[in-house]
């Protein structure tokens, strides 16, 4: 019948304009690629899928409107997104109320999966997960006594500082500086001068690549020659480009590495490079993976005439996903919808990343 030929609609919320338009764009690319691949294989259960992208410009109110539109006007089967934790926290009550399953590939605030929302699934490591892995690694492998932290004044940056600081103190080491900055700041000389004066052994940058690269460069300009550490975005090729060498030696966590020999990753990197002419980075990978997780669940859920039932079935299928291979490693959701994801720890050496952990790869 006609209904069966209708494509399956997936809603995507992300910042396609505004301050985070850049990572938003990567996210979009990852999704476009996955959708294209799945449709090329003939879709899911014989149906094509379409992604409907809605911009939230990183503003919670707009994010709510986007979720409302996707769930009630476009009547999508499931939602993927968004980028900012504040936006997800704002709109997740919409998807919950509409009983629409949501996969969140990027936003890392713990509260997202801690609130008891049965329709929320996250396929990336939370802040505490990645930060404590980094802290463990650094504390175990280096003999640093004094740590400094410079982080963005957002839930993301604050969360990093909190977890990292706790680990450091627990190990009996010292946090000598905790400095904040705002997104969009460009000059960090003041903070870095202050930090330099306190003589730390290592500096943790808790922020995104734009500000992170500035911090790395300005630290070098000021002659602050300490071990730099970072998270997430600081492992991307763009970061390396923007740093102009200032990232040499920086240790950083990474959800996704192009250089591993996992066949899934290889295939993804190849296809992405072909389509977009550049290597993928973590946000593209996470979003790409989210589409495949959705595919698996939709496939398992089977056909339903009634949208509400169908959504419910997809949700239940998501909850049951176990060891589903993906470009960020296997996905298994716990009862809160959080996937247990390991992260890589890498180090920038001569514009290349050397994987420090896990050592086997």
């Amino acid at each position: 019948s006609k209904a069966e030929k209708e494509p399956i609609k997936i809603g995507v919320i992300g910042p396609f304009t505004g301050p985070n338009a850049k990572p938003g764009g990567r996210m979009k690319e990852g999704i476009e690629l996955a959708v294209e691949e799945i449709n090329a294989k003939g879709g899911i259960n014989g149906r094509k899928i379409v992604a409907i992208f809605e911009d939230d410009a990183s503003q919670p109110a707009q994010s709510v409107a986007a979720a409302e539109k996707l769930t009630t006007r476009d009547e999508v089967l499931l939602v993927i997104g968004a980028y900012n934790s504040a936006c997800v926290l704002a709109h997740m009550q919409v998807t919950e109320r509409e009983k629409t399953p949501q996969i969140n590939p990027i936003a890392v605030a713990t509260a997202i999966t801690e609130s008891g929302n049965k329709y929320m699934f996250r396929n990336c490591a939370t802040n505490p997960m990645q930060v404590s892995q980094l802290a463990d690694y650094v504390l175990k492998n280096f003999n640093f006594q004094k740590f400094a932290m410079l982080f963005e004044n957002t839930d993301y940056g604050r969360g990093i500082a909190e977890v990292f600081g706790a680990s450091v103190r627990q190990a009996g080491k010292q946090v000598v500086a905790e400095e904040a900055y705002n997104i969009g700041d460009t000059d960090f000389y003041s903070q870095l001068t202050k930090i330099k004066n306190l003589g730390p052994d290592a500096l943790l940058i808790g922020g995104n690549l734009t500000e992170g690269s500035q911090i790395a460069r300005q630290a070098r300009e000021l002659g602050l020659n300490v071990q730099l550490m970072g998270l997430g975005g600081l492992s991307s090729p763009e970061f390396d480009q923007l740093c102009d060498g200032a990232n040499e030696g920086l240790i950083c966590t990474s959800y996704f590495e192009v250089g591993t020999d996992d066949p899934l990753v290889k295939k993804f990197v190849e296809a992405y490079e072909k389509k977009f002419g550049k290597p993928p980075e973590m946000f593209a990978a996470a979003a790409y993976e989210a589409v495949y997780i959705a595919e698996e669940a939709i496939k398992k859920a089977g056909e339903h005439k009634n949208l509400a039932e169908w959504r419910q079935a997809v949700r239940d299928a998501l909850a049951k996903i176990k060891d589903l291979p993906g470009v960020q490693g296997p996905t298994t959701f716990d009862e809160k919808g959080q996937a247990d994801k390991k992260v890589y720890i890498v180090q920038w050496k001569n514009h290349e990343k050397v994987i420090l952990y896990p050592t086997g790869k």
Partner: protein
Amino acid sequence: MQNFIQQVMNGLVLGSVYALIALGLTMIYGVLGLINWAHGEFYMVGAFVGYILAVRMGLPYFVALVGAMLIMAVFGIVVERVVFLPLRGRPNMNVIIGTLGLSVFLLDGANLTMGPDPVRFPSIYTDQFIRVLGISFTVQRLLVVIVTLVLIAVLRLFIRNHKLGKAMRACSQDLQAASLMGIEINHVAMITAAIAASLAAAAGTLIGPIFLVNPQMSIAAVGKAFAVTILGGLGNVEGAVVAGFTLGLAESLTVAYISSYLKEIVAFAILITTLVFKPEGIFGKHSVEKV
């Protein structure tokens, strides 16, 4: 002490940035009487122009700087004709909304054409360091301060000695009466917009190599520029300069000696406290309204 000197130096660089951006803003207000909400975007567009000239076309840095200023002067004239002119003489709020339209247009236009990604804008001076007495900074930073001071001096001379300066003041007080004095208001308006835009271009091209260039750079800049403009007294060129440096130093020292969380608040707190005690800005002259 060393720390203090370094922080003062940091503050001076920041202050130059603020002053340079605020100068154009205060001139447009002073002469045309309009609050240009899109001034941050002037700065951003100027930075991109400098970037294209210097990096993509490979022109020497100073050639790119002058080139960007000239190109943006033309840009300023176009904006004056197309946007400011229809808003001339309209109430404040309409001007704000009208130039807000321009600002949104330029910002998202840049997002579309240049992409949202930040780009690096290296100059030969970004990798030359000066290290004395344990304080350090790049030559580019020093350049920012020096070129800013030179531009300010030139601008002052120009405004003081050229008849245009007087014409600008007259225009800001009564456009019609000014035209009756034989002042060609349209020329004054265009020249003002041209100067303001080219100052913004200078700011963008000077600062681009220190930081990064991306469409979003306009947003952070404009709030500060407004604070500086008001602190210095609207339309007051000297005021903008002093206020710019004051704010730069205040921020730098706040981070150093109080808390980096308060850095942003300091700007606005200074602004509001000043206005409460001196409603016409630090350098505004207070005059009783004659009834």
